[in-house]
């Protein structure tokens, strides 16, 4: 196993040393935006919002219609496959970047000093983005999604103290029903995007303030 400064033995050690040196290379201010992951995240979020609004014109959040309306979007609506595909893949990319961003900060110890606020917001953003993507993947409400909701809420219900209440709240009753789909739809289209938006805006405000004060820092 290599040491903490990346020096190790063999090819693995060399690779880690190279990776470590790459991570520690100072980035010129002009290129910082390119290498950082914050701005692609913002772009993906905006893409999600735009494609989500377009999808909402055709999607029907009712158990009898959800899967069929999704299929209609993919099959019959002009460019529907593209909008749905971009919405799906930008969601996946957003989760991946939300995972990579704290990992990069963790490896480069970029949480220090003035960057502490951004780090906190990034950590809070991660579960929200995962929930946003996961709730979206369930909205097609096909057999797989339904089975997943049943299994997931059953697992959540087994968590002591808060589990049963949370599961009951999401289900909207004792069983998975139309209310569950309605609540997942509300969470995916109304609550969670706003939370993400607020966190992203706060992060931008912090970054703008740091830039103005000349503290720089990564995004």
């Amino acid at each position, binding site marked *: 196993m290599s040491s903490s400064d990346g020096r190790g033995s063999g090819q693995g050690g060399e690779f880690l040393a190279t990776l470590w040196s790459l991570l520690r290379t100072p980035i010129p201010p002009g290129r910082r935006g390119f290498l950082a992951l914050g701005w692609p995240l913002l772009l993906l979020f905006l893409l999600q919002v735009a494609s989500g609004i377009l999808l909402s014109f055709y999607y029907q959040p009712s158990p009898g219609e959800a899967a069929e309306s999704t299929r209609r979007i993919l099959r019959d609506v002009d460019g529907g496959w593209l909008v749905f595909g971009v919405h799906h893949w930008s969601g996946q990319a957003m989760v991946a970047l939300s*995972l990579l961003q704290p990992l990069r900060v963790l490896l480069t110890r970029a949480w220090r000093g003035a960057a502490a606020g951004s780090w906190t917001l990034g950590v809070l953003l991660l579960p929200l983005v995962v929930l946003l993507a996961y709730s979206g993947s369930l909205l097609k409400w096909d057999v797989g999604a339904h089975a997943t909701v049943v299994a997931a809420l059953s*697992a959540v219900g087994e968590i002591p103290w808060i589990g049963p209440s949370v599961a009951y709240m999401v289900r909207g009753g004792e069983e998975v029903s139309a209310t569950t789909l309605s609540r997942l739809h509300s969470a995916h289209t109304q609550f969670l995007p706003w939370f993400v938006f607020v966190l992203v805006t706060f992060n931008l405000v912090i970054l703008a303030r740091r830039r103005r004060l000349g503290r720089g820092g990564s995004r």
Partner: protein
Amino acid sequence: MIIVLKRGTEPDQIAEVLREAQRRGLQCRALVAADKPVLHVLSGNTRRARKLLKLERVQALVATSGPRVRVEGRRFFPYHFLNWSSAALMLIATLVLLAGQFPPGVGEAPGTLAGQAAPGADVAGSAGAPIVLPWYVAWLPGILGSGSPGAAALLFAGLLLLLLALPTLDRRLIRGKGGA
């Protein structure tokens, strides 16, 4: 800030302007070295000082310093814009490519109860259907299966709190090392 008085202002008129300035909360001192006497404002509000312009003997107000912190506007660099646009276009192109090559599919709708197929109707179970989890939560069943869901939830909450507290813990660690 300097208050310039008109040419030929008499000492008693200067004293009157000084009194008026003092009444408005400004601290001034008079400098009479040329034909136009001036008042050097040592402390006070610019907004209040401007009101002295209404006095008959006051000619002008000269600011001697700007804001303490000058905020420089962000400059626009065309090559940055080009870089950003290229990156954004590449990202969107990749998403379009993925959407075309690997389109997300939709399975069969879960069986609805007889007579409840209308929108808003409850859905019957989907027993036996395969559970397909997205990659970012695919590891959850493994963790949940290895222990109790309560322990897993506690583990996640603890990890989240640890990550949130990392800057504080790190600062304390550095201080501890510095003090040693």
